[in-house]
């Protein structure tokens, strides 16, 4: 394999990894921006997305339906959780949110074990992308290229939705001053439920998309939640562009670290985070320290 071909496959690998991480990070950062809470259940909802996707793909016989429906279902679960439980805690301090979202993570994890059993489940890639493509003569899984495209399309779609839609405007305004938005006649609680649901749905989208690569397993929750936190901290809590940059940085560090210095791959991610925090304590695009 030529050096150039190797480099290219690693870059595409890293981009596909970044795409998956982006779905996690962007939801987490949107939720933090609006609600000032860290959603500990984010990894569990990512996993739930993968399992729901598995069942839907088997039931419907097509991955595409799972890709659309699983995020909607998990998003609805998230919105219902906000409506039923989180909403009662807004006057409490941050530790209440940590405990209750951690509780949600445990409940979701156990529910998945009860419903789908203890084993990892194979989710086949969609037929259209199950083959290989050749990058500079080297075979490469087409599905990873699809992930890169999906990540790019979603990043642009979310960015445009934030900039151009009414809901996007309200999300940005609420993240700057929720009380003022409320006093201008907007039911801020609705915005909060919506954003929590959207964030959870995006995590589930990442889970469905990851499933063909890594199988749907219980382990996926705990590994990705750390990655997601690192992304959000690097990019700056609450910053959309920050979550994109954070996902790209972490994706590249993980893939290249794993290839060249596998023993230190994990350490590199934390070193990166430390470096960013030393230079910019609020994250690359964060406001406050």
């Amino acid at each position, binding site marked *: 394999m030529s050096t150039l071909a190797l480099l290219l496959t690693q870059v595409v690998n890293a981009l596909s990894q970044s795409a998956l991480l982006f779905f996690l990070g962007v939801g987490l950062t949107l939720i933090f921006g609006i609600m000032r809470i860290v959603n500990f259940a984010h990894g569990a909802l990512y996993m739930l997305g993968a399992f729901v996707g598995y069942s839907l793909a088997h039931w419907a016989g097509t991955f595409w339906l799972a890709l659309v429906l699983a995020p909607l279902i998990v998003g609805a679960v998230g919105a219902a959780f906000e409506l039923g439980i989180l909403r009662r805690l807004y006057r409490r301090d941050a530790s209440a949110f940590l405990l209750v979202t951690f509780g949600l993570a445990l409940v979701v994890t156990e529910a998945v074990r009860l419903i789908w059993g203890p084993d990892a489940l194979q989710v086949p890639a969609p037929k259209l992308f199950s083959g290989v493509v050749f990058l500079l003569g080297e075979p490469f899984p087409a599905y990873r290229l699809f992930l890169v495209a999906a990540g790019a399309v979603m990043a642009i779609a979310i960015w445009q939705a934030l900039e151009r839609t009414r809901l996007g*405007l*309200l999300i940005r305004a609420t993240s700057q001053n929720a009380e*003022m938005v409320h*006093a201008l*006649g*907007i039911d801020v609680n609705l915005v909060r439920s919506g954003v929590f649901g959207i964030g959870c749905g995006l995590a589930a989208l990442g889970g469905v998309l990851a499933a063909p690569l890594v199988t749907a397993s219980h382990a996926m929750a705990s590994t990705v939640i750390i990655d997601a936190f690192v992304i959000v901290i690097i990019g700056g809590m609450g910053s959309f562009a920050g979550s994109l940059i954070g996902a790209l940085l972490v994706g590249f560090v993980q893939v290249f670290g794993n290839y060249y210095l596998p023993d230190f791959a994990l350490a590199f991610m934390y070193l990166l985070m430390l470096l960013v925090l030393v230079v910019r304590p609020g994250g690359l695009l964060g406001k406050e320290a």
Partner: protein
Amino acid sequence: MLSIRGLNTHYGASHVLQGVDLELPAGRIAAVLGRNGVGKTTTVKTIMGLVRPTAGEIALENRAITAWAPHQVARAGVAYVPEGRLIFPDLTVVENIRVAERTPAKAWPLERLLGLFPSLGERQRHKGAQLSGGEQQMLAIARALVSDPKVLLLDEPSQGLAPLVVRELARVIRLLREAGVTILLIEQNMKLAEAVADALHIMVKGRIVYSADPERFRNEEAQIRSRYLTV
């Protein structure tokens, strides 16, 4: 239009509003003056639903709106220009206004507002944080007007503004009065309040202790100043 009776508000153990009574007739401007910390801002926040009263009643056109959620108070027709303006710093001028435009504005559409405040018209794409204090104040007023309010609550609009900008502010407030907007003006700037208000009220320790029309107020100004307003 807006009527407040026996309003009481507590912050924890401190009794901030101790029975505020205030009548705001339709189409008029009522000014509330008073030293720092007597409860002027708390009065506005309580009307707006941002602070819960412990007793008393607030009615808008004879309909009780006491302890409604802020968005419900706003939708009933009360618009809020807070102390310190609280512009959204990362939104543009136009976006700041659009947040409050829940339905297409009839009386105060965007084009009219940008005409009313020419400096905002010139800076439509600027972010809130890039505006001067005076421009931010005008933007806060524009943001309130776009919801076509029945009542406008103006909390210390002249705070921190240069005299020339305060004069511009007075022009805008008079213009709003001519357009029929009912205004509750909280002010420390006595000259501004005197120049625009139909009725002046003075607040001391959570109560309205003195009310007068501008003429009587001017006649008694020296006594009022030494009795209620100087520290």
